């Protein structure tokens, strides 16, 4: 760490420092998250597409930010890689209950990222954010899965 980062870290709540250390030292399988150099509340995240899912073989980039009132408020997370998924909209915003009303300070960055990874394995078209994608999923699941696979090949290669 350089001196600017040390000064930043000194102001960071202990909870965030501990979570960050653990994310770096014991990363969850298929997930990496590292704080950006100039903002220790802002993380570059990578999630590997889970096997047996249409996202298998893809590397998905996300960004995560811990707002001022974290952990009382949930982290903010967004996909940076284009993804065809009923619970992710065109801007990469994610529909996931724990990022909204089901958030609890007992959850962590790690749990959030694991939940997003799980969402890739189990798309939920009944609680959609991207309406047309969800409709595609409900009316023609094999077709939707083909499109998701196609997008993974086109946009999610590292």
């Amino acid at each position, binding site marked *: 760490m350089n001196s600017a980062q040390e000064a930043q870290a000194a102001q960071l709540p202990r909870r965030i420092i501990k979570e960050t250390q653990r994310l770096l030292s014991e990363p969850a399988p298929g997930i990496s998250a590292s704080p950006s150099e100039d903002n220790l*509340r*802002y993380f570059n995240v990578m999630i590997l597409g889970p096997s047996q899912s249409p996202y298998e073989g893809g590397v998905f980039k996300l960004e995560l*930010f811990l*707002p001022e009132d974290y952990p009382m408020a949930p982290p903010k997370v967004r996909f940076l890689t284009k993804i065809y998924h009923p619970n992710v909209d065109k801007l990469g915003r994610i529909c996931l209950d724990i990022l909204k009303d089901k958030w609890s300070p007992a959850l962590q960055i790690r749990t959030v990222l694991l939940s997003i990874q799980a969402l890739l394995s189990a798309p939920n078209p009944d609680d959609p954010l991207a309406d047309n994608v969800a409709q595609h999923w409900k009316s023609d699941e094999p077709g939707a899965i083909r499109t998701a696979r196609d997008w993974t090949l086109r946009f999610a290669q590292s």
Partner: protein
Amino acid sequence: MGVVVPRNFRLLEELERGEKGFGDGTVSYGMDDADDMQMKSWTGTIIGPPGTAHDGRIYTLRIQCGNNYPDQAPLLWFRSKINLACVDQRDGRVDPSKFPMLGQWRREHTLETVLTELRRDMASAMNKRLQQPPEGLTYN
């Protein structure tokens, strides 16, 4: 140093505020292309303030939020022709050297505060009686 909200999350906040609507609706804004993950191109709208030469007019602006927004000011161009001291008549650009909120940009400023300030500027003593071009003309 306080908590710094990074560009993309700041723009997502502004987008949500713009979608919900705010104030009395006399200024508004939205993204041009719902697919643009970079969130660069925006359109703003200002309804001309009553009691001025702008009364009843609806002005649209093109707004660009660069990679360094909000550390750096956005760029704004009027699409609709308007006669205002801070607007370059060649292309409708809002000239930061003549519009302090852009020239002395601060991170706390937002698209909402810029548009609101432009509307206030239309009603300033310097601008409110300026003769205006016919309605419906645009810069190219």
